[in-house]
């Protein structure tokens, strides 16, 4: 049981349609499988529309490359919430030592949350830095990887470059850097 659990790191990315969370999930899974030599499964659930509505992506990573049987998240080790609805729905579903990253642009009072709470206004700071929110998902990925180290930064960057539109590589790399920076800054204040 113990060994199986250790080999199964469950990540849930929850928010609204249009925030690019499914793409973020795919990038994370590709960083793990294609570039890091780990095993991973990615899945998602859509809201009724492809934009707006609730959106949820899940990634299960097996760091030691064992087979992943059940492909869905049961209780996440890491939860990213980027909307109030997602906070209410998923905020309390977390492992006791789990990490929850909250985009405080949308969620101000994480009262229901359990686990280690890291609250950063991801979307707001993305807008501040780049003048647009489109790469907020990539910034969030940077934060997740800086904090959890679940994939290497090198693999993450390769996976991002593979998936983003041509011509936006530098923007997305900067977005990752912003994510790393925000996470480090936050961790320093916590510690």
């Amino acid at each position: 049981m113990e060994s199986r659990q250790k080999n199964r790191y469950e990540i849930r990315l929850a928010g609204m349609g249009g925030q690019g969370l499914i793409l973020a999930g795919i990038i994370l899974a590709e960083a793990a499988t294609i570039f890091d030599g780990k095993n991973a499964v990615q899945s998602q659930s859509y809201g009724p529309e492809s934009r707006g509505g609730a959106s949820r992506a899940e990634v299960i990573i097996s760091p030691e490359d064992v087979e992943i049987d059940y492909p869905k998240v049961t209780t996440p080790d890491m939860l990213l919430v980027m909307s109030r609805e997602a906070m209410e729905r998923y905020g309390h579903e977390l492992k006791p030592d789990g990490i929850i990253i909250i985009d405080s642009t949308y969620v101000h009072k994480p009262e229901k949350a359990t686990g280690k709470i890291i609250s950063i206004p991801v979307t707001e700071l993305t807008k501040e830095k780049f003048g647009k929110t489109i790469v907020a998902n990539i910034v969030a990925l940077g934060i997740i990887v800086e904090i959890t180290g679940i994939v290497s930064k090198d693999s993450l960057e390769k996976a991002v470059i593979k998936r983003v539109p041509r011509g936006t590589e530098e923007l997305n790399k900067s977005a990752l850097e912003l994510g790393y920076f925000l996470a480090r800054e936050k961790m320093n204040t916590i510690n």
Partner: protein
Amino acid sequence: MKKEYKLLQGNEACVEGALMAGVSFFGGYPITPSTEIAESLASRLPLTGGKFIQMEDEIGSIAAVLGASLTGAKAMTATSGPGFSLMQELIGFACITEIPCVIVNVQRLGPSTGGPTSPAQGDMLQARWGTHGDHNLIALCPTSIEETFYHTIKCFNLAEEYMVPVILLMDEVIGHMRERIKIPDQKELMIINRQQPSMPPEEYLPYRADERGVAVLANFGKGYRYHVTGLIHDETGFPTNDPKETSKLIRRINYKIENAKDKLLDFQKDNTEDAELIIFAYGSTARSALRSAHEAREQGMKVGTFIPKTIWPFPEKAIFELAEKVKTIMVCEMNLGQLVYEVERAVKGKARVELLSKASGELITPKDIMKKVVEVYN
């Protein structure tokens, strides 16, 4: 060259498998959660010289597929519940005329429009019995992205080998989730192509079956001018009312599959040797079953799993053999109980059969299964 992993959706893996098997025609109609198959083939087929057409509905789709197949094309369609229902009449047409084709059904919650993005396994019996009259066909059910790739190739191979429609029963979870896969070189794979007649056209009888009971249909346009009809026909292919010929045809199209059963069956047994309880599960549900079986073992319960990969024909002999050794067979399915009837039939009272059903539009979880295992173990 060293093969690298790719991260693919089940629907994408199905497309890769189809292309590897040599698909050259796709006729379909958009429907969630199968649409990515059509979208991807619309883009990929022209690159290989193949043809894609979005038909006006699913009846037209399967009709176009069968028409294309008669010219020798490896032809397929992909759909989900509502579209699969519409295709039923022509699936029977394909059975009686022995036109090979592959039909992918990415199952969603039904009946009717049901839950377009919700997984279900509600079409298991429809796949076998959905069209009218005595007929037989083959259906496979993958549990992973890699299996979806290989099963799709196998579907084409079996369709061409047995001149029969072959159904790939996926579900929304398998269709949409992503896993890693190494795509092999085509030369590493066995690809079966359709038999063609060797005799001169004047001696050719399209429905004079070979020793396996399988018709040898010449590709249209190749000089063998014969007749294909959905009516009862004799070996010439023309309609007949003769009761003897009628019975001969109906039996042959059924028994050609039945007689090949040993070759067709594919299933996975894990930890069944000392098991007291066997979890029977298929498709995405099998993934939950594997997890639960491990957990049960860790808790000291002797639990094994039986995962059928070929659903039709059904592996009744293998299940009967298990039933003689175990106390309980627990069937887990994302419906209110479909293959459980087949399991009960196969078990012949030799073991207790329990059902864990879920029809909420959600995948059965390992927790659901564990709860039931604890309940029925003793």
